[in-house]
């Protein structure tokens, strides 16, 4: 007697849908974080350091280990008078 393989189609569909959305989410998150896994458990200290990294490298996740900062760095700090959205 032939096995009812058509009954497995919904399972296949659901698995594919979960996999597709999961992969898309992961790819989008990595693209937003310069190809690295996103950071989590971020405190105000980490926010402050990431803003400093943005001033140094142009991106909140960019890293460099030069000992000396570029010329404008000493005077380009930002003091917000109101809450600003971070990007």
């Amino acid at each position: 007697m032939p096995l009812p393989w058509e009954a497995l189609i919904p399972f296949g569909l659901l698995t594919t849908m979960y996999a597709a959305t999961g992969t898309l989410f992961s790819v989008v998150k990595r693209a937003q974080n310069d190809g690295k896994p996103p950071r989590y458990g971020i405190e105000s200290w980490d926010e402050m350091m990431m803003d400093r990294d943005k001033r140094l490298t142009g991106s909140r996740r960019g890293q460099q280990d030069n000992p000396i900062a570029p010329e404008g760095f000493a005077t380009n700090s930002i003091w917000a008078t109101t809450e600003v959205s971070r990007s």
Partner: protein
Amino acid sequence: MSSYVTPDRSAAPYVDPTPEATQPHVPEVGATSAPLKSAAFFIGAYCKEYNDDFMLCKAENRNPEHCLKEGRRVTRCAIDLIEKLRENCATEFQRHWECLDFRNQEYYRCRKEERLLNGCAFDKLGLTKKIPGTSPGKTPIHEVPNPIYRNVQK
């Protein structure tokens, strides 16, 4: 009643409010968060006196003007150490901070690279990582051979 006029529209000449520099100019540290986190304990070991000086000075008076001299020394020492690390232990240093950057900047997830960096720093620069506040009999967490908490993927 006069309203505030932005500098570009005001008739008066612009006077820069920055006070005269009292200290010789020192450049800022250019390392970002992951390399600084990687070098943190070595900065603590290498620059201990200058850091303690600065913190004691700040404890007296929080005004930025009061501690410019000590702050200058702290910056110069940190720059010096990062230059030394790049010169002597470039590959180990870079691998450690790249690992940290990939793993949410958590030390417990990069112990293998950290051991290599600590070995190189000890051999070439004579610096050891010491965690302040470990009880005398206890092994510091970075020296425990098989810790419970570690990176999930080997």
